[in-house]
């Protein structure tokens, strides 16, 4: 599967007009034909497409992700440098949005069609419709420029010399706005999925049975309705994890966070094939891992999803 992903990425990038040398020459304001020629030779871009693909695969087989043309550094270094920032950003955004989203979803879904439900559902619809770049800019203008409570951008204070807990606190402070912008939008999504899952669960027979058994309302909501509604939510979380790894190019750009998404964008505009393929390979591996975890969570939530059940 990984093989297909790599070949497809390669072909996609190949179909885009212009190569890494074109992009580089532009960035330096021009150069003559001999420069272009020698650069293409140095990067092996003068070879045929198949030869380059073969070269890439043979180095990939030895876990060598190659050398970035646009950055002039090893791809692995670049990825390892950027990945933690994106994982931190997207991890906390997902955790917060999942937590608040499902909690609010439970509140809304506990009594479908109530005032509470309508207010929350409408609010989430509005939030979900807001583009992330707009929300990011507005949050930045209000809290960083006007009120000056928080920094406008960056992952930490520049050259502050902070270490340990002080540095962690500094990073957390810088992450409030970007995480907030992302979390608000994802939260709306999770809220809606949770709420509709619960609304559906209310109509099921086992809920009627639980009621007739005389269980308390809160027990029915939490243990029977919410738990069942969690299943689609976890599926959603799995899907979201893939989107998450691409990072949010927009949020990373607005808040100047050197992350994975921005790196991918730079790789595409610089026609940096080794870098882009490295990013795709690492993302694919991570998505596979996340989905494995999601499957295990599934099994824990739903006893019907067992490893080997002979009952069908």
């Amino acid at each position: 599967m990984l093989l297909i992903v790599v070949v497809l990425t390669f072909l996609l990038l190949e179909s885009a007009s212009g190569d890494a040398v074109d992009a580089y020459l532009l960035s330096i304001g021009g150069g003559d034909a001999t420069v272009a020629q020698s650069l293409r030779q140095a990067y092996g871009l003068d070879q045929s497409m198949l030869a380059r693909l073969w070269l890439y695969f043979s180095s990939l087989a030895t876990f060598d992700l190659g050398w970035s043309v646009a950055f002039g550094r090893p791809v692995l270094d670049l990825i390892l440098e950027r990945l933690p920032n994106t994982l931190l950003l997207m991890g906390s955004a997902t955790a917060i949005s999942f937590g608040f989203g499902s909690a609010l979803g439970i509140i809304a879904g506990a009594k479908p069609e109530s005032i509470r439900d309508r207010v929350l559902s409408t609010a989430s619809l509005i939030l979900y419709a807001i583009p992330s770049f707009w929300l990011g800019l507005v949050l930045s203008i209000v809290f960083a420029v006007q009120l000056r409570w928080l920094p406008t951008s960056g992952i930490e204070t520049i050259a502050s010399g902070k270490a340990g807990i002080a540095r962690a606190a500094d990073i957390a402070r810088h992450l409030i706005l970007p995480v907030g912008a992302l979390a608000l939008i994802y939260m709306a999504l999770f809220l809606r999925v949770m709420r509709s899952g619960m609304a559906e669960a209310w109509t099921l027979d086992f809920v009627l049975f639980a009621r007739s058994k005389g269980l308390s309302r809160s027990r029915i909501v939490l243990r029977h309705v919410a738990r069942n509604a969690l299943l689609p939510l976890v599926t959603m979380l799995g899907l979201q994890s893939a989107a998450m790894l691409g990072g949010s190019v927009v949020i990373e750009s607005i808040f100047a966070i050197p992350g994975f998404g921005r790196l991918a964008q730079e790789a595409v505009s610089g026609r940096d094939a080794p870098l882009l393929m490295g990013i795709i390979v690492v993302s694919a591996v991570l998505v596979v891992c996340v989905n494995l975890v999601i499957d295990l969570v599934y099994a824990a939530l739903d006893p019907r999803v067992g490893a080997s059940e002979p009952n069908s």
Partner: protein
Amino acid sequence: MTIATLSRRTLLQAGGTLLASTALPTFAIAQGAGNRLIAAADSEPKNLNPAIVASNGVFFIASKVVEPLAEASFDGKDGLAPRLATSWEGSADGKSVTFKLREGVKWHDGKPFTSADVAYSALNIWKPLQNLGRLVFANLEAVDTPDATTAVFKFSKPTPLQLIRNALPVVSSVVPKHLYEGTDIATNPANVKLVGTGPFKLTEYKPGEYYRLTRNADYWGKGEPKLDEIIFRVLPDRAGAGAALEAEEIQLAAFSAVPLTDLARISKVPGIKVISKGYEALTYQLVIEINHRRKELADLKVRQAIAHAIDKKFVVDTIFLGYATASTGPVPKNAPEFYDASVPTYAFDTAKANALLDEAGYKKGANGTRFSLKLRPAPYFNETKQFGDYLRQALAAIGIDAQLINADSAAHQKAVYTDHDFDLAIGPPVFRGDPAISTTILVRSGIPAGVPFSNQGGYENKELDGIIAKAAETVDTSARTELYKQFQKIVATDLPLINVAEWGFITVARDTVQNVSNNPRWAVSNWSDTALKS
């Protein structure tokens, strides 16, 4: 100290020291931060060596670390201020130029700077490797170093001193021979970890975050640099620099990092100034590139009609919000040494444009269209893209149907400069102080495909080629200048391309930043006298 000796006085003393010890570090931080300039940077060049890559993106950061022989100046002789060279003199036959070099200059690693470094940089880097130096130093044969502070450039063919002078700020960044000799220059680690003679040392680079430049205590300039540190903070988003300026997280944004549309608002923020000075030697030109292989465009009348169809005043006022000047020809008004205003001009006149097209035999069809064209605006600036939209409308008014094709940088570069897959393109070439550096290449014939910002439209004019070739070896300054005046006349008459407007960039700075924009290449100069007032 026992309890008995604990007097009121010692307590007070102890209290005093305690106070002082808590107060001291705060003071130190305040001073350090007070003398640190934070500027916005929007790109991170992979090769930071200005001797190899003479581009504004590289100079913006590297010019503070690596110095040229001379820098541009508003009031200096020949428009130059001496840096590593203190004087320059050309021989009568144009075959040699003698540079006297500054004494007592040290590299950041402590080694002395000598004429050997200049000779090495010129012969091994500027001439063979540098994007612009290849052209300027094409006929450089040898560099003699009779003593440690004299470098004599020897040329195989007469090379105008005027060209060398005008090119000095851009092409003459000197790098240390002792770090480059015997290595692979292209991959030398010093291309990223710069070592120069400049007022600042490059001490830290965090990719995606910032560059840190620290004061060079051994700098040759007396009392310079005035700053302790410069931080270039990477802010890729165009709204980011403005917000960071307002929030006082950065103090300076050059190269129009704050978009033109934000300037009216941000100029009203107290404590922030908007400066359009300081880019006079870095003039960008808004140019319509024409593919002369296309039958209709090979007709001069059609090109004249297109020139008449453009309302330059509208372009300057609406697209550039007034931060530009209408062009008359291939040399900008900012280059008074060469600029000639007495060239044919094309007033905005749709009726005349329509008449010219009728004359040329391209009558309007039933749908009001004469013919269709492929129009490719360069994506590098908002303004080039917006001008693409404008040009499409302007051409529609004279019955030419322009189909806009927008592509990203790499794709645009390949389509226009390699594949010639365009009829009209909009490009932003730069005028770099002398027409021979990057202007004549826009109209000269015989340039191989694949060279960006060059004549890829298939235009060929023997007379023009002759003038360009003659100017390249005319040593006498006034004769050479006269040739470039002829050059401007021919270009404005024959329209191998259409010059629409010329613009410099905008610097936005906090009021605390002193000595901003005090030379015509300020953003890419060394900032040794830049200071912060607290």
